């Protein structure tokens, strides 16, 4: 059975002046998979991710996200994806419920759906009693879980997570991955970057970027076998040490 592709990237090139940030990237991402997008600082991950989100135009290459063309249909792409960055942008001086309703509105949910979603998210996250708390007063772990729930409030096809788990305690970090697994099991495609190499092993497939190129792309198990490594950290060190574009 042919698997459905939600991201198709062919020969993506992005230049800033003379600097080639993305050098002929080619890869596909399938529906419902957890796709780990790894690379050293400066390898070109953020550049590629911004292009896939419709926030920046490629210099050349063919790219489709959810079937939409990145050159001509970037607004449609933006509506069909969710995005959460490490510096997630919740409004600290609004309550938990207000944040959910606000983002629901931004993503075009109907008023009645927004109220329904608000209830459902609070219950799913196990935080109904925090409904009227200001987001600024929540511990970091809760903010991260809330930011993730909000990033998928409009049931997007794909959610992009840019280093979502930085700094939290080991239990919260694992609870966060439970949310990711659960979203993936509902068919939402997860595109995630991380510096935790154990998290790379939670992904279905992992790509590793070095100097603007995809140097390796496979399941963690195959990568570890190919590079005769005991874990993804060794695979990463092996590949990323070759990098020339050190930040």
């Amino acid at each position, binding site marked *: 059975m042919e698997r459905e592709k939600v991201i198709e990237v062919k020969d993506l090139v992005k230049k800033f002046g003379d600097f080639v940030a993305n050098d002929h990237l080619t890869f596909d991402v399938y529906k419902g998979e957890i796709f780990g997008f790894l*690379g*050293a*600082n*400066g390898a070109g991950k953020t550049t590629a991710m911004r292009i896939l989100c419709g926030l920046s135009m490629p210099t050349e290459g063919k790219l489709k996200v959810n079937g939409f063309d990145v050159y001509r249909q970037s607004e449609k792409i933006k509506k069909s994806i969710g995005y959460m960055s*490490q510096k997630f942008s919740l409004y600290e001086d609004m309550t938990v419920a207000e944040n959910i309703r606000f983002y629901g509105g931004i993503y075009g949910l109907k008023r009645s759906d927004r109220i329904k979603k608000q209830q459902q998210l609070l219950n799913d996250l196990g935080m109904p009693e925090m409904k009227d708390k200001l987001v600024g007063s929540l*511990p*970091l*772990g809760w903010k991260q879980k809330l930011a993730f729930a909000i990033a998928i409030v409009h049931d997007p096809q794909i959610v992009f997570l840019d*280093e979502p788990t*930085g*700094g*939290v*305690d*080991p*239990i*919260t970090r*694992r609870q966060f*991955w*439970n949310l990711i*697994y*659960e979203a*993936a*099991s509902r068919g939402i495609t997860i595109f995630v970057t991380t*510096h*935790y*190499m*154990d998290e*790379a*092993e*939670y992904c279905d497939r992992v790509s590793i970027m070095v100097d603007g190129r995809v140097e390796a792309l496979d399941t*963690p*198990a195959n990568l*570890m076998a190919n590079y005769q490594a005991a*874990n*993804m*950290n060794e695979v*990463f*060190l092996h590949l*990323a*040490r070759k*990098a020339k574009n*050190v*930040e």
Partner: protein
Amino acid sequence: MIKINNISKSYGDVKALDDISFSVQKNELFGLIGPDGAGKSSLLRMLVTLLLPDSGSLEISGLDVVRNYRKIRLMVGYMPGRFSLYQDLTVEENLQFFASVFGTTIAENYHLIEDIYKQIEPFKTRRAGKLSGGMKQKLALSCALIHKPDVLVLDEPTTGVDAVSRREFWDMLGRLKKEGITIIVSTPYMDEASRCDRVALIQQGKILSIDRPEKIVQTQGHQLWKVKSENVYKLLTDLENWDCSKSVYPFGQFLHLTLNDLTIGKKEVEEYLLSRGHQSLIIEPGFSDIEDVFIDLMSLQKAKN
């Protein structure tokens, strides 16, 4: 070298540090390991005279940090978690500024920073605000070292940094230690504990454990089962819902499973998982690592509260 005695600090209702005491030996590489909000930054800011404790005292080389803050500032080099150099000054101007504030020159202690600084020297005329994250970090470390401090205090220098750069950074700390500098460093990455001589695991303002990292694992770790199957998410939920499970957490490709009945062995785990339809099962004995221990201690602390 460093003595911390019964330090407490609250921000409103939040107890950031709760009666913390420990010492760091001269020339030790000491790690404060814990997540955001554990109290690491507050403690480090007190050591470098930027924050006053509510109660308790701190000493560096026998000097009380609060009373002798001027002397202390000459003795410590501090790299804060947030980039705090002058964005409008160039790389070289920043370094010159820090050298002159401390009454020294770049040339005098260049050997200390050479390793790090030569990587950013090609960009020395660039404004600090225009540097990438990795370069800012190297500049900040150079500025913290330029007056040859006795004690180097680093607040989460490797947060958001990739695995290769993290390893290089720790190699560099190892070399600075050989120069005789005492280093106290905080990090949320548990795996970095093994690079320290001793560590304090810290969570919600309390020290969970303090010792050499291998000793912590030896004394507070335990046997566990490492389990793997084709469907990780199902494996996780099935084991979480099993009566015999005490704890189950993902650790990379394996789940770490502990059981609440020690008479249960591999055979029972296997039978249960086969009955739940799992395929390509791997079940092997293992031992805690530092992150398992942290999780155990965290759960214990929670249960106590």
